[in-house]
């Protein structure tokens, strides 16, 4: 796959925190409209990888391309981030703003859109995901599932080229997980390019075009979900999946 075709391309990405090397040379290509799920144990580097793509963390070595353009070095990070949406495990909504203001803040203040235009677009998104009636609520009045859906809408309002989802259901009560996964499913069907770190294996199996197994800061194995989940080649992948199955998560 040439650089031009990939929505996202990582080459030899390395990242250390102090003496701990979290990413040890990650190579990854994500095609346009492709949904890639990152699986792996806690501490394998999934979250760090996503934060590096959004430039919340600066990589120590390697290169990152967004639609063919190198973004990791010498580029205005703010401009890159406007094109790369990220949704966090803990929602991170702005508690002092209503739902509508949460969604319109970045379009008005970072993109310079007029308030009326931003609000109209925000309302369309909120309606699409069944949140229109919550537009004047503050985040602490919403359930976890609603908060996470608002966080997804907030990222979508920037019309990103790429969405990064960092274990977005891990902080939710079990009965609230489905509503958030349905939103992601819908985005996948609409053709959104996404990289998703997740512990929800059945979701990964149903939604992902490709699954990458991260182990100790490297992508150890990747392929279509049916291949990874039924015929993993690497012993480490097999062990990981066995533990997941034993925990009843697949």
């Amino acid at each position, binding site marked *: 796959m040439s650089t031009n075709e990939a929505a996202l391309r990582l080459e030899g990405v390395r990242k250390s925190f102090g003496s701990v090397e979290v990413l040890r040379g990650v190579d990854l290509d994500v095609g346009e409209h492709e949904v890639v799920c990152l699986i792996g144990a806690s501490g394998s580097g999934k979250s760090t990888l996503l934060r590096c793509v959004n430039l919340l963390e600066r990589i120590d070595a390697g290169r990152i391309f967004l639609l063919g353009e190198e973004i990791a070095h010498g580029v205005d990070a703010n401009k890159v981030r406007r094109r790369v949406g990220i949704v966090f495990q803990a929602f991170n909504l702005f508690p002092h703003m209503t739902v509508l203001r949460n969604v319109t803040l970045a379009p008005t203040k970072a993109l310079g859109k007029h308030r009326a235009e931003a609000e109209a677009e925000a309302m369309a998104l909120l309606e699409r995901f069944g949140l229109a009636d919550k537009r004047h609520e503050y985040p*602490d009045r919403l359930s976890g599932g609603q908060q996470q859906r608002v966080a997804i809408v907030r990222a979508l309002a920037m019309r990103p080229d790429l969405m990064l989802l960092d274990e977005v259901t891990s902080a939710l009560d079990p009965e609230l997980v489905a509503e958030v996964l349905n939103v992601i499913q819908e985005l996948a069907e609409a053709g959104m390019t996404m990289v998703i770190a997740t512990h929800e294996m059945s979701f990964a199996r149903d939604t992902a075009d490709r699954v990458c197994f991260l182990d100790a800061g490297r992508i150890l194995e990747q392929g279509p979900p049916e291949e990874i989940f039924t015929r993993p080649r690497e012993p480490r992948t097999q062990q990981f999946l066995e533990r997941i199955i034993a925990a009843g998560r697949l």
Partner: protein
Amino acid sequence: MSVDAETGRANRRSRILGDLQGGRNIAVAVASTVVFFAVVVLVVVNSAGWPEVRKAFFDRQLFTDSFPEIARAFLLNVRIFCIAEVVILVAALGIAVLRGLPGPVLFPFRLLAVVYTDLFRGIPTILVIYILGFGAPALQLSGVPNSPFFWGVTALVLVYSAYVAEVYRAGIESVHPSQEAAARSLGLSHAKTLRFVIIPQAVRRVIPPLLNDFIGLQKDSALVALIGPIEAFRQSQIDVAATFNYTPYLATALLFLLLTIPLARLTDWLVARDRRRQSAGGAR
């Protein structure tokens, strides 16, 4: 919801009254208060020096005579701290933001902010007022007022901005880093993240300690008298010197209390309200 409101009311009451539940407890509290203050009054009134003190401090005629003039002078105190408070709110926020600037290039600004706060928190307010009040006019700077009022207010602004900047900084640091990450991840610059996400949350949290500093500032407005302006304290000194009676001081104290006590109660109420919100799980 109604349960929260119930406990909320109970909590607010208990801020001052302790745990007063049921008529019996209230009766005991009232009785013990009456007895306590009766004893204090009796001891004072029966002390050997009381007649003298009474004459020197509690002269009703002198009080009514001097009060209007002192109250008029007190308006100068009000002007001093009103102007100072507005400037401090802005200047201190600027200093707190300077101190939080990221990156090695901006180190000089951070250093400046640290030196400033260390310096002006370290020097007694009265010295700053003296140094500025008597020193600065001697510089004969063109375009800068030479009035002691101006330099007195400037001195208070310099000292209290250092304190209030630290209050702001504590507030800014109390906002969870994930809030900054969320704002930056949406493509907002550092400045816009501060302005729209961090500072609004920080300011809400620091309003009680901020008001606390302002109580201090209101009292310290009397220190400006030392370089000339005739505010309430200076006016009462003049009255005392004319009559050899200390009652005017009491009138001045009363005027200060009329402003500082409501502010203190408001501060307490805000703290209690925040605590209720936190325990109710609200983050607003």
